[in-house]
C-alpha cells in the first residue's frame, strides 16, 4: 500500500493529451506488446505447489482471480500515469521509465521518492522470491526425498544468487526477461491444458461440495 501511494505523487503533472490519440497505432500494435507484459503476470503457477496445503480451497479461485485483476489494474494504471506525466516520446527513451516518473514526485521530508519506492519494492521482490524459493525446494524435495528439503534449500541458494548477479549486461537482462515471459506463458498454457485433460479423463468432480473432500 505505501508503494502504491507513492504512485500518486507526480500526478499533478498528468496531462491527458499525452496519452491521446488512444489506439492511434492500431489494435495489432497494442496486441504486439502482450509478450513483454506477460512477465509481470507470471508466478501464479506456484498455486500448483501450494494447493495441497491450502485449507479453505473453496475461496482460492475467487482470491486468485481477484489477485490477477488487481495486478492487471496496477499494470494498466502504471502505464497510463507514466505516459500521462512523461509523454510517449520521453518514456520511450527511458531505460527505467517508472523510476523517472517517481523521481519527479516529491515529498516534504523524503526528497527522493524513487529511493523510498525502491526500498519498499525490494521488500516486495524478496517476499515473492521467498515464495518461489520455497516452491522450488519443496518440489525438488517431493521428487527426491522429503528429508532432503533443507539440503535443497541450501543448494538452491547459490543458483538464486547467480541469477541475481550474473546477467551484468543490460540488454541480456531484458532479453532474459522476454524469454522467461514468453516461455512462462507457454508453460502455463500447456500446464493448464494438461491438467484440464487429466481432470476430464479421470472424471474429477470440481463442484463446490467435492472440493473440500
Amino acid at each position: 500500500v505505501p508503494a502504491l501511494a507513492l504512485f500518486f505523487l507526480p500526478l499533478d503533472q498528468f496531462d491527458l493529451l499525452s496519452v491521446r490519440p488512444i489506439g492511434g497505432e492500431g489494435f495489432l500494435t497494442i496486441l504486439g506488446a502482450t509478450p513483454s507484459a506477460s512477465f509481470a503476470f507470471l508466478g501464479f503457477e506456484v498455486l500448483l505447489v501450494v494447493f495441497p496445503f491450502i485449507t479453505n480451497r473453496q475461496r482460492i479461485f475467487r482470491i486468485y482471480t481477484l489477485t490477477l485483476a488487481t495486478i492487471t489494474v496496477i499494470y494498466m494504471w502504471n502505464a497510463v500515469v507514466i505516459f500521462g506525466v512523461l509523454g510517449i516520446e520521453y518514456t520511450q527513451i527511458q531505460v527505467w521509465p517508472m523510476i523517472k516518473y517517481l523521481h519527479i514526485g516529491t515529498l516534504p521530508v523524503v526528497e527522493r521518492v524513487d529511493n523510498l519506492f525502491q526500498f519498499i519494492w525490494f521488500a516486495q521482490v524478496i517476499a515473492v522470491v521467498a515464495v518461489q524459493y520455497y516452491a522450488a525446494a519443496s518440489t525438488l524435495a517431493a521428487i527426491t526425498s522429503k528429508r532432503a528439503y533443507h539440503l535443497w534449500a541450501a543448494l538452491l541458494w547459490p543458483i538464486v544468487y547467480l541469477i541475481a548477479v550474473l546477467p551484468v549486461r543490460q540488454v541480456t537482462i531484458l532479453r532474459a526477461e522476454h524469454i522467461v515471459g514468453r516461455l512462462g506463458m507457454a508453460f502455463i498454457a500447456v500446464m493448464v491444458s494438461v491438467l484440464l485433460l487429466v481432470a476430464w479423463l479421470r472424471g474429477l468432480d470440481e463442484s463446490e461440495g467435492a472440493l473440500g473432500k
Partner: protein
Amino acid sequence: MTRKAMALLMVVLSLFAAGCWDLRVIEDLSLVLALGIDQDESNPGMLIVTAAGPAFSQEASEPTFRTTTMGYCLTQAFMSMQLERQRELAFGEMDVVVFSEEAARSGNMHRVMRDLDQVRDLDPNAWVCIVRKARAQHVLNLVPREESRAFMYLTTLLERNSNIGSIPRATVARYSIQHSAQGIDPIIPVIELIGAGDKPEDARIVGLAAIDSRGKMVGTLTDSETKTFLLLAGLGNRPRFSTHIDYQGQSGCAVSGLVRKTKREVRAGISRGRPVIDVRIRLEVDILNLQAGLDNVLEEKVFRTLEKALARDFQGNMLKVLRKTQDWGADILGLGRFVRAQDPDWYKDKDWSEEYRDCQVNVQVEVKVQRIGTLVSPLY
C-alpha cells in the same frame, strides 16, 4: 548436521552483507546546487560550465564554492571539474540551471538538456532559466542583498513567481518532456541582473524564452506577454494583469485585476489540408483597481460593459502573442498536440514547426467579472 551447515552458510553470507560499500557521507561531497552554462565565443561547440554549492569546511573563506571548467559536453566538463575538487561532486540536490542567452541562442539547448537529463542523480525538478545581457557564471557570483547565496535566491525567486502564477514551472524534467514530445516546444523564464553600477546584486524575471524544435532560443515574451501566454496556454495559476481599456467613451482607463479561474477549450481539425484550431478561453476575474468615472459600481450594466471591454482586450493581446510564436515557428502553446490527437494520420507526415507558422488559429475569450475591489489574499 543440516542446521550446522545452515549456520555456517549464514556466517559466510554475512561477509557479503557488509553493506554501505558505496556510502556517501554528506561532508565528503561537493553538493552542486546550481549550474551556469555559457558558450565559448571562440569555439561555439565548447561549453563553459560553472558549478556552485555550499562550502562545508569551517576553514572555507567563503560560504559558497564555485568551479568553472570547459567541455564539449556536460560529462566532459564534470569530469574536468572533479579534478579541481577535493570532494566528490554530487548533483542530487541541484536547484537551478542557468543558461546565458548566447548559449541558449546557439541551438545547443536540446543537446545540453539531454546531457543534464542523463546525469543519474540529478534532481529533475531543478529549475531552468536564461540570463539576458550577462554570463551565466556571473549570476552564480551574485551576492544578493537579502540572501548570502545566489542559488538559494534564484530558486526562491523562480519558485515564488511560479506559485503566484507569474511564470510557468520550468524544470529540467518539464523541458525534457516538452522537447521530446511532438506538437509542443519548451519555454524557459528569462532573468536580468539588476543593481547599482557595475556590480549587480539582484535578479529580475523579465519574460519567457521560446525554444524551437531544433533547440534554439528564438524569441522572448515580455513579462506582460507572459501572463497573456499563461492564460492562452491554460497554465494560469491565479495570474494578475494590468491593462488599459476603453470604457463607455472613456479611452485608456487603467484596470488591474486577478484571474481567479481559467478554462481553456481547444478544438482542432484539418480543413482543405490545413490545420484549423479554435481556442476558447473562459476567465473569471476580480477587478482590483479601475480608473474610470463611475456613478455606481455594483450595477449589472457596469459588470457587463467591463466584461466585454476586458474580453476584447484579452483577445487582442492573445492574438498578438499567438502571432509572435507563429513567426518564431515555436509552438510553446502546445496546439500541435491537439492536432495530432485529432488527426494522427495527417500529423505523421508533417513538419509541425513549419505548419504552425501558417495554421489558422481562432481565439474566443469570455470574461466574467466576479468582484470589483474585493479580494481574498491579494498577492502581487
